[in-house]
Every structure is written in C-alpha cells, then in structure tokens.
C-alpha cells in the first residue's frame, strides 16, 4: 500500500484555490502587506503565523473582503475577487471574538447564513442539525450564546461559519480565548472537522505550537512579508533564516565564519582557540562568509566525558537547569561566554540526575544536527 502524501504545493499540475499576486496593502504611510505572492491549495490547512502587527490579520481580512488590496490581485478559484463584496464571496470567517449574535439562539445563529441564501426551510433545518451534530451541540440548540460556555461558543462560531459550505474558511485566532487544556483538545477537533468536511482552512495565529499542530503548511510572516512557507517539520528542521529559526521553538544560534570543506560540508570557525565546528549544509556559503549555526536544544547531547566519535564537542559549565517535568533544559556557559541550551528527556527520576549546577560538562552534536544560515 502506498500512502499518498498530501502535498499539492509540490505538484506543478495543481491549481491553487487562492492566489495572491503581488499584493500590497498600505494604510497611509504604513505598509501592512508588502508585495506578497502566495498560493493556497484546496483542502489545505494553511497557517499564517507571526507576531502581532506582521500583517497576518490584514491578509485574512482581504480574503474575507473587509479590506481591498492597494495593489495586486487576489484570485479565488481563478476569479479575481477584488470587486466582490464580502456577502457575495464563497468565503466564511470565524471571528476571534466569535461574533455570535447575542439576540439569536444557537440554532438561529447557525441558520443565519442559510436563511440569507433563501434556502428552503426544510433544507435549512437539516443543515443546521447536521452542523449541530458535527460540533456536538445538539443539546444547546435552543440556548442563547450567553447561556453556554466559552468552548461551546467557539464550536457554535465554527458551525455557523461552516454551515454555508464555504470554499474557504478563515479562522482568526480561533482558540485564543480558550484555556490551554481546552485549546489542545480543540486543535485536534479542528483538524478532524477540516478533514471530514474537506474545506480549505486558513488560520491566523501567533501561537506557533498551534500552527505546528494543525497546519499542513505554515507561513511565517514579518513586517508584511512572507519569510518562509513550508510544512511544520520543514519550518522547524530547515528554517531559511535566523528570524524563522528564532521565531519557531527554541534555538541556539552560534555566529561564525564559513569555510567550505568538501561536498556541502563546512568548517565554521566560531571562536579563536577553539576547533572549528563541522557542519553539513545544503545552503552554499563562500569562504569567509559570516553565518549562523542554528541548532535546536534537543539535538545537543550532554555528557560528563568528551564523547569519542562526536562531530562537534565543546566544553562548558552548567549555569542553570530548567526542570519541566518531562524534559530538562540545561543552560551551559561556554568559555566564550555564550550560553548553549541542551535538552534531555527525563527518563529517570530527578533524584538520579547525573549533573548539577556548576558541573563541567561536554556538549556534542552531529554535523547534520543544525542548519547553517546566512546573516
């Protein structure tokens, strides 16, 4: 059996559902979106991730029709949607505040969009019941929004925006108002519903864990530009810039200069008097070019003795230990003053921990553990 991988972005034949063509949005002097071109494919779960003010919400509001691009074009299924008002677009949005109509019952909230379509009464009732089942809200149909809990409200908002069979569903920080435990459960529920309905989802979030969990592709944004678009694992393992490496998860950045050393291999000198680091990198660097080695804490091993066969090993002193239950993060100070974080799983009870504060330890990692990034 061959598992078919869902990667339409790698298929040159695939037609994108949404195509942004050199879109720019300015508010007076301020440029919110800067000459941006992206493709989003059908059935994708596409996450826009970035700090607040990076333009992700503006991008989403342009898709919904609440903002129009200053320059450039947006295509939905091949059609330029700039002149189409929000109420005529096959796009629905789930608002951050949920925006449930307080004067209507849950049932009427979900039916609201269907009634506007002049759907026959009977069909409306069927569709609403279907949505109530999908979001497990059957018991609450007659209640008003203020009579249900936050998590239920979130599901009503989702049901209401999905009821009209949109080609594209936009989710603006959909889980921002929920507490952590509920948020995690809801993430899986969202993925489940997306799979069941086959709708294309675009989610805006500033929570990188959320983006990584739910999305098929993550677009990292900064200052109105897309920095990198890739699947969560590629974003994490092969960031294309220091910004992305730093924004997603925890990372150690070591500055140095590159020296080519064979096929895709480099010797990176990082501090005088220390052996250069051995790094493999598909990104090309010229001799003497400044670069950063980005390496995730969990890919750095910690040991008391110098490991014999490690590609890279440096000695340091434990400055701090952050105990997180399942894992511990060791902050190790190198002789250069730089602090490297190393993470290990706590497979044994804490009383049996091998190292403590002020211990001198060795940190080691393989040549392929990190990525070499340009300045």
């Amino acid at each position: 059996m061959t598992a078919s991988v869902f990667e339409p972005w790698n298929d040159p034949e695939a037609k994108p559902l949404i195509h942004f063509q050199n879109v720019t949005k300015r508010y007076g002097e301020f440029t919110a979106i800067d000459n941006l071109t992206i493709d989003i494919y059908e059935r994708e779960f596409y996450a826009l991730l970035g700090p607040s003010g990076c333009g992700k919400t503006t991008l989403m509001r342009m898709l919904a029709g609440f903002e129009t691009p200053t320059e450039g074009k947006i295509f939905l299924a091949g059609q330029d949607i700039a002149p189409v008002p929000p109420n005529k677009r096959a796009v629905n949005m789930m608002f951050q505040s949920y925006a449930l109509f307080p004067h209507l019952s849950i049932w009427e909230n979900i039916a609201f969009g269907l009634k506007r379509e002049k759907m026959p009464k009977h069909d409306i009732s069927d569709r609403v019941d279907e949505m109530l089942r999908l979001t497990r809200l059957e018991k609450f149909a007659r209640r008003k929004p203020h009579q249900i809990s936050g998590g239920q409200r979130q599901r009503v908002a989702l049901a209401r925006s999905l009821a009209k069979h949109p080609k594209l569903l936009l989710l603006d920080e959909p889980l921002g108002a929920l507490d952590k435990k509920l948020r995690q459960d809801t993430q899986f529920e969202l993925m489940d519903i997306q799979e069941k309905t086959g709708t294309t989802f675009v989610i805006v979030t500033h929570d990188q864990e959320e983006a990584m969990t739910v999305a098929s592709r993550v677009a990292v944004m900064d200052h109105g530009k897309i920095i990198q678009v890739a699947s969560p694992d590629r974003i994490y393992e092969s960031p294309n810039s220091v910004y992305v490496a730093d924004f997603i998860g925890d990372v150690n950045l070591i500055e140095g200069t590159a020296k080519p050393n064979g096929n895709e291999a480099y010797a990176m000198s990082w501090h005088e008097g220390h052996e250069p680091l051995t790094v493999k990198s598909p990104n090309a660097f010229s001799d003497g070019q400044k670069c950063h080695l980005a390496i995730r804490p969990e890919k750095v091993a910690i040991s008391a003795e110098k490991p014999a066969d490690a590609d890279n090993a440096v000695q340091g002193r434990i400055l701090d230990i952050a105990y997180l239950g399942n894992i511990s993060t060791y902050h190790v100070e190198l002789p250069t003053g730089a602090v490297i974080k190393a993470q290990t799983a706590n497979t044994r009870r804490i009383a049996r921990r091998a190292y403590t504060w002020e211990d001198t330890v060795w940190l080691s990692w393989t040549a392929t553990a990190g990525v070499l990034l340009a300045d």
Partner: protein
Amino acid sequence: MNRMSWFNAVSLTLGFAFLYIPMVILVIFSFNESKLVTVWAGFSTKWYGELMQNEAFLNAAWVTIKVAVFSSTMATVLGTIAAYVLVRGGRFMGRTLFSGMIYAPLVMPEVITGLSLLLLFIGIGLDRGVFTIVLAHTTFSMCYVSVVVSSRLVTFDRSLEEAALDLGCSPAEAFRLVTLPIIAPAVISGWLLAFTLSLDDLVIASFTSGPSATTLPIKIFSAVRLGVSPEINALSTIMISIVTVGVITASLVTKHQVARQKREEQAAERA
C-alpha cells in the same frame, strides 16, 4: 451593613428634602378641600373630578401626548441614523464638524432654538399648530437620541456586523437583522428620553404653537398666571405619578434582566 454616620445621614436628609419637599407639598395640596391653595381644609379628591370635566385641560393633554409620540418617534429614527453614520461612517470630510453640530443643540439656549424655529415657520408660511410643535420637538430632541445611541454604538463589537456581512447580508440587512436588535435598548431609552423632553417642554412649544394647539405645559403656565388652582395641583400630581411609575417599572425590568443574564452565564460556565 455598616450603620450610617450622622454626617452622611444629615447630608442625605438635606439633599432629599431639597429635592422632594416642593413636590410633596404640591401632592398634599392637590387633595385639599379648600379652593385656597395655601389653606388646608380637609381631605378631598374633588379637584381630580373637576379636572376630568375641564375640556381645555383634556384637549391640551391630548395635544401634548400626540406631539410627544410623533416627535420622539421621528427624533429616534433621525437620531439613530445620525449616530450610526457618525460612529460607523469612517473618516469623511468634515466628520468632526458634523459630530459637533449634532451635539450643539444640547447646549443651545432653548429661547434661541424656539425663536429661530418661529422665524423659519413664519418665513416659509407654515401655520403654527400641532405639526410645527412636532417639528420643533423633533429638532431639539433628536440630538439627545443620537447621544444615547452613539454611546451604545461605540462599545458595539464591530465584528458582529462583519459576521453578518460575511454570512451573506447586504449592509442594510446587517443593520436591520443584527445591529438594530442589539442596540434596541439604547434606541428605546433614546425614545423615552425624547418623549419626556417633549412632554415637559414649555419654551420651544410656546414659540411654535398656535391658537389651534396648546400643550399641557403651556396651559398650566398660563393658568398659573391667573393664580394657582387646586386643579393644577391635581393635574401635576397625575403627571408625577405617571413619571414615577414609568421610571420604577423601567428600572425593575432592567434589574431583573441583568440578574437573569448573570444567573444564566454562571450556569453556563458551571455546565
């Protein structure tokens, strides 16, 4: 509960005495047997009976109510539209000027408003009567409505309207189906405010009324110039009780609604 200090008790008593002694005296003397207002001669309700026979007063009361209903309704429609445009309209040319101009009549001396309306009606040759009073009252009470409604609209979650658009409403439908039902309490209190303003207005009404139409405040005012009669006391007492009943009912209803909403929210969170 803490006992009130003597200072607070005295302040409270003085304050309420200041507010209510005149009204209490008026109510008491409306039940006076004597024709003389200042001499007590035993309890009687005969002046209420006489009032019901007084055609002039009854006519004036009818005119007043007609004027109040029509003018407050028109003021509510216009004031709500104005508030909506000013809060939602975005930045158009001269917006600050417009919002200033909407509120200006609030501080304008009534005499000036009345006089300018009088000049206008004479200028365009409009015969003064119920219609002109309605127009005049609409003009000045509309800005009160727009103040009340716009303060509600400012706190209105804009994404509710966007959600309505997103779900297929035209902007007009979004207003009718979502915005209006939600701001309805503010619109209703705007209407009530306009209604009471119109009910007790004397100055503007006296400028814009004609021989064919006299409102109750004008009637009372002109009657008092011939001497205060117990009949007027009785009339005033009726007005006071209507207003009191209205205010108490409104506040009880609001209180009840707030309490119910809170209960239901708590129940929802527990569930």
